[in-house]
C-alpha cells in the first residue's frame, strides 16, 4: 500500500503499479460507459416507445378525444412561433452585446467585466426564476401597466400570453447567443480588422463590413442553440403563456400557446388518463428530442467548422 502511494515505485511494486493503472483506467472508463449508456438508453426508450405513432398525421393534426388521440400540430406550431419570437428578441440583443464586448470594451474595463459577470450570472439563474420574473415583470408590471393605460378595466396584455413567454425565454437564451456570437467574432482575425482600420474605415464600418460578415456562422450557431434551448425549456413558460389545450392556434400576441415540452409535462403528470396517453407522450417526447438534436447537431457542425477556420 505504502509503496504504491510513493511517486516513483520500485521494480518490486511494478505488478501492483500495473494493477492500479488498470483499475484506474477501468473505473474511469466504466464511468464514461455509464454516462454513455444513460444517453443511449434514454434515446432508445423514447424511440421504441414513440416510433409507432410517429406519422405525418401525428405531426399535422390537432389533438382529438380530449387529448387522448390525434396529433400535436398546435404544440409544434406553438413551439415554433414562440422560438421565433424569442429569437427576434434574443439574437439581435445578444449579437449587439457580443459586438460590444469584443469590439468596443477594453477587456479589463470595469464595464466589460460587469457585463461579462452579468452574462455568466444570467446563464446560471434557474429557469423557474425566469418564469417568476416573466410573471412579475412582463405580465403583472408591463402588461397590467399597458392595460391600465390603454384599456382600463379589461385584461388584454395583463395576462400570460405568447409574447410574454417568448420574451421571458429570450432573456433565458440571451447568454447562449452572446457567448457563441462572441466566440465567432473572435475568429475574425485581428489582422483583417487592422487592414480595414488602416484604410481609413471607422470602427463601425469595420464591424459592419468585415466583422459581422465574418461571424455570420457564429450568429447562426447562437441562434440555433438558443432555439434548441427555447424549444426544450418548460419552466419559464409555465406561468407566462403556455397552455395545455387551445381550440385555436395562436392568432395574436395576446394568445396563449401550446408547447411541446409543456405538452409532455401535462400529459404525463396532469392529465387524468396518463396511461392511455403514454404512446402519445413517447411520440411527443421523440418529436421534441428530434427537434433539439437536429438543432444541436447542426450547431455543433457549424461550430467545429468555425473552430477549424480559427486554426
Amino acid at each position, binding site marked *: 500500500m505504502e509503496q504504491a502511494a510513493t511517486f516513483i515505485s520500485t521494480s518490486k511494486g511494478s505488478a501492483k503499479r500495473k494493477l492500479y493503472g488498470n483499475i484506474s483506467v477501468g473505473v474511469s472508463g466504466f464511468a464514461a460507459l455509464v454516462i454513455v449508456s444513460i444517453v443511449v438508453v434514454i434515446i432508445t426508450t423514447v424511440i421504441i416507445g414513440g416510433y409507432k405513432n410517429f406519422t405525418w398525421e401525428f405531426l399535422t393534426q390537432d389533438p382529438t378525444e380530449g387529448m387522448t388521440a390525434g396529433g400535436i400540430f398546435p404544440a409544434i406550431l406553438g413551439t415554433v412561433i414562440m422560438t421565433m419570437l424569442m429569437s427576434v428578441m434574443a439574437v439581435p440583443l445578444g449579437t449587439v452585446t457580443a459586438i460590444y464586448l469584443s469590439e468596443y470594451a477594453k477587456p479589463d474595463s470595469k464595464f466589460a467585466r460587469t457585463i461579462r459577470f452579468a452574462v455568466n450570472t444570467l446563464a446560471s439563474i434557474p429557469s423557474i426564476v425566469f418564469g417568476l420574473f416573466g410573471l412579475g415583470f412582463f405580465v403583472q408590471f408591463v402588461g397590467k401597466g399597458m392595460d391600465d393605460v390603454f384599456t382600463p378595466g379589461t385584461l388584454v396584455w395583463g395576462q400570460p400570453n405568447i409574447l410574454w413567454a417568448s420574451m421571458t425565454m429570450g432573456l433565458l437564451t440571451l447568454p447562449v447567443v452572446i457567448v457563441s456570437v462572441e466566440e465567432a467574432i473572435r475568429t475574425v482575425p485581428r489582422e483583417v480588422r*487592422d*487592414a480595414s*482600420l488602416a484604410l*481609413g474605415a471607422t470602427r463601425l*464600418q469595420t464591424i459592419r463590413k468585415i466583422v459581422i460578415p465574418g461571424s455570420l456562422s457564429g450568429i447562426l450557431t447562437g441562434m440555433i442553440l438558443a432555439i434548441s434551448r427555447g424549444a426544450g425549456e418548460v419552466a419559464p413558460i409555465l406561468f407566462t403563456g403556455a397552455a395545455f389545450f387551445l381550440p385555436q392556434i395562436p392568432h395574436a400576441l395576446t394568445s396563449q400557446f401550446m408547447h411541446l415540452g409543456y405538452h409532455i409535462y401535462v400529459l404525463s403528470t396532469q392529465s387524468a388518463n396518463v396511461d392511455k396517453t403514454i404512446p402519445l407522450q413517447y411520440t411527443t417526447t421523440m418529436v421534441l428530442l428530434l427537434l433539439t438534436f437536429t438543432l444541436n447537431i447542426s450547431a455543433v457542425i457549424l461550430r467545429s467548422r468555425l473552430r477549424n477556420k480559427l486554426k
Partner: protein
Amino acid sequence: METMEIQKNQEAGTPEIKTVMRSAPRSAVLHYETKVSTRDLNLFYGTKQALKDVSLDIPVKQVTAFIGPSGCGKSTYLRTLNRMNDTIPGCTITGEVKFDGIDIYDPKLDVVELRKRVGMVFQKSNPFPKSIWENVAYGPKILGEKNKTTLNEIVEKSLRRAAIWEETKDRLHHSALGFSGGQQQRLCIARALATNPEVILMDEPASALDPISTAKIEELIFELKKEYTIIIVTHNMQQAARVSDITAFFYIGELIEVGETRDMFTNPKKKQTEDYITGRFG
C-alpha cells in the same frame, strides 16, 4: 556590391533598377522637406518598452527604409505613424509625432482622417475574405466613391501598379483567399494604393515574394515616390540600398543611426550599424 545587384536585376529582366541607384539623391538629410517628424517617442507594451526616445524626420516624397534585427521595433514604430497601436490594449505612447506639422496624438485629431492619408501594407498579408475586386474597392468605397465605373477604373489601375493585374484580371470576383501568399501581398499593396494616401507604410512588403515580383514592387516604389512619401521596413540590405533614399537603423527599440542610404551603406558612423550592414550580427 552594386554590380552584383545589377546582375540580379538583369536576370529578372528589370534594368530600370539601375536608374534607381543612379538617381538616388545625394544631398544631406537636413535639406529635405519633412512629412512626418517624431520627437522623443517612447512606446510601452504594458511595462515592456518597445521604443526608446526615437526622434526622426521622414522626408516628403522620398523612400525611407527601416532596417534592424528582428524585434527591434521597426513595425512598432511604423504603426505609431498611423496610430494603429491604438488598437493594442495596454500600449502607451509618449513623445510627439507630427504629420504635416499636426500632432497626430492630439486628442482633437480625427484618427480616421489620418489613416485615410497614411496607407499601410502589413508585414503579414491580410486580404479580406472577399473577392479581389471587393478588396481593392473597399478603401475607395469607404471614402465615399459609389460610381461603379470609377471603382472599376481604380481597381484596375491599382492592380496594375501592384503588378498583379495580369494574374487577377480574369478572377476579379474570386475570393482573395484562393491566391498565393505573394499574390495576396501584392493585392494588399494594390488595396493600399487604391485610396491614394499621402504616405505609404510598407512593412516588409516583399518578404514573401519571388525575385520577379520583388523587382516589380521595387519598381513600383520608385514610381510611387513621385507622388507619395514611402516608408519601407526590410530585412534585405540590398533592397534597402536599391530603393531607399534615407535609411534608419533600429536596434532594441532605439534609433541608432539615420542618414542617406548611400552614406549609410558606404560609410556607417556607428559600429553597430556597420556590424549589422555587413552581416556580422542580426
